[in-house]
């Protein structure tokens, strides 16, 4: 067992975890933040993407122990202006159907916007490659990101 201390959605949390527990299972289990989903547990689908120290990572591939000392933000804690704009755009552009990929998509989409890569469709599509959506065909997602990028760049 390993003691860890993390910040989760702005709140400090300390606890003891089994080393084999993934960050995803910690978040979904003891932390009861079930907005982070598991679609493959082998790094391909991106449903488990969360923000670790400000950048998206696969929470399924990371032992919770390795996140010791890190600040983690899940969908439940994404409340900046950009996140709110993105939420609105996801709805207007019908960027979700079943909603299972959505929290991972939001994490990636926010990162795309922050890195200033939301300005053309081809770049957005390339940057979304690591997130699978089986429902939408991505077009609403691409449109939503494009929309927010246009809204927020002068």
């Amino acid at each position, binding site marked *: 067992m390993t003691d860890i201390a993390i910040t989760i959605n702005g709140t400090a949390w300390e606890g003891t975890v089994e*080393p084999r527990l*993934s960050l995803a299972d910690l978040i979904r289990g003891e932390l009861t933040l079930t907005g982070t989903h598991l679609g493959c547990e*082998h790094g391909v689908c991106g449903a488990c993407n969360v923000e670790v120290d400000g*950048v998206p*990572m*696969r929470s399924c591939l990371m*032992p919770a122990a390795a996140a010791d000392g890190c600040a983690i933000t899940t969908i439940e804690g994404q409340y900046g202006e950009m996140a709110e704009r993105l939420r609105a755009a996801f709805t207007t552009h019908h960027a979700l159907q079943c909603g299972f990929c959505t929290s991972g998509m939001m994490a990636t989409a926010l990162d795309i916007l922050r890195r200033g890569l939301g300005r053309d469709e081809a770049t957005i599509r390339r940057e979304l490659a690591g997130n699978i959506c089986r429902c939408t065909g991505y077009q609403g997602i691409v449109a939503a990101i494009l929309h927010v990028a246009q809204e927020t760049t002068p």
Partner: protein
Amino acid sequence: MKFPAFDYARPAGLDAALDLLAGEAAVLSGGQSLSPMMGFRVARPEKLVDISRLSALRGAALEPDGTLVIGAAVTHAMIEDGALPGPLGGFLARVAGGIAYRAIRNRGTIGGSLCQADPAADWPCVMSLLDAVLVLRRAGGERQVPVRAFLLGHLMTAIEPGELLTVIRIPPQPGARFGMAKSTRKLGEFAEGIAAACLTPGAARVTLGALEVPPATLAVDPALVTGPQPARLTSSPLYAAVDAALKAADATDPAGYRHHLAVLTGCRALIEAAQP
């Protein structure tokens, strides 16, 4: 699909890490290859030593003679974002940006990728092209191994138990221009054909990955690279030359598609290197 049980340690310094590794432990770097393998339970290390935050392995520097030194725990994303100084930085940033997906690049490391030794991976191919030398340390010792002697085959390297890859040293490549080509069915997935090429005044070489064997570096007549190319590469003299060189290396089934893709991506990498 849950990880099998293991012990976890994150030593604060390099020496502590080497001591731990001396006692039957495995290295955890970014975990972007090791974790899926543990999930499928094809890897079951009893103890993991997390080296991903060791500051000694997280930097990059240019030595006075132009040798580029990269810490093993530097992530793909750091390289993509320009962490490498010197003339190679731009090319390596582009290589890094083509690996997997950003969320993976944020954790995956160059050292992990070399030690994983997936023949289809990017760093083993590119580092072979650049004649990189790997610094392997163990408690009380160090050796330097050229990457071409390090990579032994599919998921096989010359690393010994207790050893840690600490630094990758890339010799200066004066006047060199580079190119890279990959062929994937789906963006970000491991390549079916991968090649990196280097063009210097008077010489051209290309390294082909995604073979059954370690990346193969072939010399090509630079005149074939710099001239105009026909629209169908497969009918070019360049294609014929790379094809012949790969056949001579005896690394593939010469009639198979994989062979063809290796040659094709090789040509594309060379042509890219020749672009002004």
